């Protein structure tokens, strides 16, 4: 049992399937008599749709029909609402929410917006016909830069929305912060960008929709990371009963937030399945993904830090312009507002903080939460301004950070942003990371780099973030006579290994055989509720639900065990899968108790066969605060501007680690994703709104040789009391810490060149140019 216990590096059960090509991804899904849909997307960032002529396309071989925005509008379907947790402006009025239909009806507002959908016998035929759909566009001026979108003379994207503003937002104590700045010895200020990126999951989005006329019900298999919430949205759009829509996800190849969003294609597909009486399939290709998957980050901020003469932090003020793209997408308005505000200041003791933001519309693909959803932005903001303070005021950057960390004795506390920080030991974590980084050998490494004409730099980046996502989660455990245990969960793995970690919790708690546990997720028929995947919630909420259900099952099993042993439930002890009567020392194994639960004759009064099946819902009251300290050492080639991350060190505090191998994977993946944002990833639209980075030929993702050797460790001595596992979300921490660690290390390397700041991504040209310009 211990082999599969909590804390063990159990190998991923799902990997055998995934790495032998036996996984079932959406493109592997087929239904009998299935037709195919191809989405014709707007090639213009902003254009009126004057007319659509489908006559020629309709006569192409294999074409079953074509749906346009006008057809959709005629059906009277509802728009897709934003479900952002921040829904009001500062003055209390609701945010400006433009109507988001599944099609661009009379005006297209971003490249990739669906204009028409062609249904044909094959995808090729649908695509052939789509080329003959004649759309008469009238090009309109496109608004691409969110900062310019707010200017008075900028054209409106939505006629009734003045200034292209969705909402404004503030959090913190403005007056106290102003006072802190007024009384400060030093004030430093920096303008910086959190660059627009795309998730680029290895599996593009896609779905298969079916309609059953006899029961008037639908089945949607969808490459999503949130079946329950999207079922509600899709049903609302189509004005059908949510219960009539069975929404499930097969194996999903990565999401990173982008597959949480509610997209227009699935409802269109459901509609088409009914209209044409055929199952419908649609799968995006990679180019469509670049255009039409929600983007992340896209924030422009001014960050100011007030310090006293000794370098003690007194106040932090951040002002952000967030780029929402053309619509309020599913949670888009939350990211640059509440999402970025909560963890302002990171792990530092800053008595006064004030965050304000304005979220703007642009003619670009809308943004939505992307791995971290505001916390990586906040982490980058505080760590850059702290580094900038050290560099410009002459403090040692390591010492400046160390002395401003929240003292351990000050926990639990609430930050001025209202974040409930209950547990942790930030100075200890910081020191442990520093100890890993071999400072003794650093001077020699710097000298070696110099000898080769290179620069070397180092930075540590402590971080404090928080979990998020839906606070409720479901777990169901059921047993069969043959000894199989089935675990059904409402959380959703899109590659993180829940098929291993969730059964691990169950095996550990019940002492049942890990290999006998079947795992079901992402199916609205299997679980009554489900929060899917997002906000690093899966272990702290989903894992807690499994633990809760297991413990409730044990309470029942104890009663049965006592009955079987002719003893008293109060006298039953349970450990390692065995019930023991503490008085008589009689024992019975849980497997025997489970077997007995199917025999009516062996059950006490009030228990029925199958009585051990248990369903439970766990609800988190307060989000957890994952934290840690990462450090990076980089080498920069000043002649070419190329950056190489040479070493990377991590101590993370996620509470107790359930499966260190899975945790390592989360950390490394997050660090790699952050490295991508720091050094190479950026979605670029040109001034006319054309997407320049429309393929992997121009959008740079990190590759294996971009990733440094990482040394990882965990601080497990400060479990949180916010959930029964004591865990703190691990999924997004890596990309909170790595952008500032890497960017600050590069700037440390370029200190001698007089380079003060470079905006992400730190591409070779930008680094080279910064060095060249500093020389002037």
């Amino acid at each position, binding site marked *: 049992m211990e082999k599969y216990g909590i804390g063990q590096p159990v190998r991923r059960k799902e990997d055998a399937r995934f790495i032998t090509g036996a996984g079932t991804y959406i493109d592997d899904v087929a239904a009998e008599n299935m037709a195919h849909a191809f989405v014709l997307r707007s090639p213009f960032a902003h254009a009126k749709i004057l007319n659509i002529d489908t006559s020629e396309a309709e006569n192409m071989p294999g074409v079953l029909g074509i749906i346009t925005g006008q057809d959709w509008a005629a059906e009277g379907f509802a728009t897709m609402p934003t479900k952002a947790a921040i829904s009001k402006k500062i003055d209390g009025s609701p945010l400006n929410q433009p109507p988001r239909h599944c099609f661009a009806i009379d005006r297209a507002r971003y490249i990739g917006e669906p204009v028409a959908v062609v249904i044909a016998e094959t995808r090729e035929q649908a695509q052939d016909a789509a080329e003959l759909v004649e759309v008469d566009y009238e090009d309109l001026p496109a608004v691409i830069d969110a900062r310019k979108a707010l200017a008075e003379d900028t054209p409106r994207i939505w006629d009734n929305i003045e200034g292209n503003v969705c909402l404004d937002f503030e959090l913190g104590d403005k007056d106290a912060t102003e006072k802190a700045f007024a009384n400060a010895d030093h004030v430093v200020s920096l303008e910086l960008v959190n660059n627009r990126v795309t998730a680029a999951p290895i599996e593009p989005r896609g779905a298969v929709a079916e309609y059953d006329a006899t029961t008037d019900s639908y089945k949607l298999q969808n490459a999503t990371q949130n079946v329950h919430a999207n079922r509600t949205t899709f049903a609302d759009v189509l004005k059908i009963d949510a219960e009539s829509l069975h929404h499930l996800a097969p194996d999903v190849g990565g999401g990173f937030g982008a597959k949480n969003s509610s997209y227009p294609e699935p409802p269109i597909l459901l509609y088409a399945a009914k209209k044409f009486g055929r199952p419908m399939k649609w799968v995006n290709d990679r180019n469509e993904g670049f255009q039409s998957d929600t983007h992340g980050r896209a924030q422009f901020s001014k960050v100011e830090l007030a310090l006293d003469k000794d370098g003690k932090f007194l106040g932090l003020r951040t002002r952000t312009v967030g780029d929402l793209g053309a619509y309020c997408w599913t949670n888009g308005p939350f990211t640059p507002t509440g999402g970025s505000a909560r963890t302002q200041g990171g792990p530092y003791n800053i008595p006064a903080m004030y965050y304000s933001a304005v979220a703007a519309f642009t003619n670009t693909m809308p943004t939505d939460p992307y791995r971290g959803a505001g916390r990586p932005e906040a982490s980058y903001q505080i760590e850059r301004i702290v580094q900038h303070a050290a560099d410009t005021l002459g403090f040692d950057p390591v010492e400046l950070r160390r002395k401003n960390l929240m003292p351990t004795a000050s926990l639990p506390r609430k930050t001025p942003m209202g974040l409930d920080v209950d547990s942790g030991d930030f100075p200890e974590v910081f020191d442990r990371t520093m100890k890993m980084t071999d400072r003794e050998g650093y001077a020699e490494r710097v000298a070696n780099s110099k000898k080769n004409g290179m620069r070397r730099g180092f930075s540590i980046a402590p971080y404090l973030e928080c979990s998020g996502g839906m606070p409720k989660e479901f777990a169901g455990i059921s047993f069969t006579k043959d000894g199989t245990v089935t675990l059904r969960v409402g959380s959703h793995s899109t590659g993180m290994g829940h098929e291993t970690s969730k059964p691990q919790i169950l095996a550990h708690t019940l002492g049942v055989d890990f290999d006998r546990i079947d795992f079901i997720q992402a199916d609205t028929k299997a679980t009554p509720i489900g929060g899917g995947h997002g906000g690093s919630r899966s272990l702290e909420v989903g894992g807690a639900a499994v633990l809760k259900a297991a413990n409730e099952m044990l309470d029942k099993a104890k009663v049965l065990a006592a009955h079987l042993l002719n003893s008293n439930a109060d006298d039953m002890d349970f450990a390692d899968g065995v019930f023991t009567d503490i008085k008589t020392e009689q024992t019975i194994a849980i497997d025997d108790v489970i077997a007995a639960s199917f025999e009516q004759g062996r059950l006490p009064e009030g228990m029925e066969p199958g009585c051990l099946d248990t369903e439970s819902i766990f609800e988190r009251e307060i989000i957890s605060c994952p934290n840690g300290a990462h450090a990076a050492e980089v080498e920069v080639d000043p002649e070419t501007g190329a950056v190489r991350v040479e070493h990377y060190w991590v101590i993370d505090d996620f509470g107790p680690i359930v499966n260190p191998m899975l945790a390592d994977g989360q950390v490394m993946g997050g660090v790699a994703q952050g490295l991508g944002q720091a050094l190479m990833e950026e979605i670029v639209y040109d001034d006319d709104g054309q997407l320049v980075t429309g393929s992997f030929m121009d959008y740079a993702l990190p590759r294996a040789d971009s990733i440094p050797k990482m040394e990882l460790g965990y601080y497990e001595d400060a479990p949180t009391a916010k959930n029964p596992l004591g865990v703190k979300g691990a999924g997004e921490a890596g990309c909170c810490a790595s952008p500032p660690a890497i960017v600050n290390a590069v700037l440390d390397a370029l200190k001698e060149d007089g380079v003060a700041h470079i905006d992400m991504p730190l591409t070779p*040209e930008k680094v080279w140019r910064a060095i060249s310009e500093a020389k002037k």
Partner: protein
Amino acid sequence: MYDFTYHRPETLADAEKMFADADDGQYIAGGQTMVPVMKQRLAMPSDIIDLERISDLKGISRDGNVLSIGAMTTHAEVAGSGDVAKAIPALARLADDIGDPAVRNRGTLGGSIANNDPAADYPAALVGLGATIHTTSREIPADDFFTGLFETALEEGEVIVKVSIPVPDKAGYVKFPQPASRFALVGVFVAQIGDSVRVAATGAGPCVFRVEAMEKALEKDFSASALKGISVPGEGLNNDIHASADYRASLISTLARRAVAAAE
């Protein structure tokens, strides 16, 4: 991808006949550019004539101071060839650094130079080494072969048979990868043959070009320091989101020095 008719001839004569008979024929070598272009529906040939089976187009041989490489020789074969490694190690390394293993196992020397992608590696090597391109109808010096952006001296239907490359005394190639595609943002090939030196830059402009000021300096003194102070004007160089013209110009100088230092 649009529908097309696929042919796989065994001889050059058959291939040329198939091409002549086709409405809008297209030869295909390794397909590493052609197939993605067709998948994106950016090309609509009526007939694809696959040169894969034609044995006359394959193979590597050395005759005295001339290395011959058949047009349908893959990058992996060039990278793995003992003859190439011995004669021109820089060329073997160049081939080994193209794309990824799948690209190197499919992509060919002839396909690459016929396509003449401005960021391809082989054009720099062939111009840098003063190679000759042998086709079904003539011999073309590399200097005259690469004529512009995706353009070559090849006539309609003309097929590259092989290239012959003089073995240099020393040669070096250094490329700086475009961060996304890993094609050459700039690549510089330097070769010394007797008293003559050639410096060819790829990725930097619309088409591979020689840097004469550097060649002259290196003919006097084949050392990295001889290039000090020699810069290439940014004017006319490529300018895109990955690199501006002046950055590319700077890379030419840097990479040329490194290529000289690495030459063997």
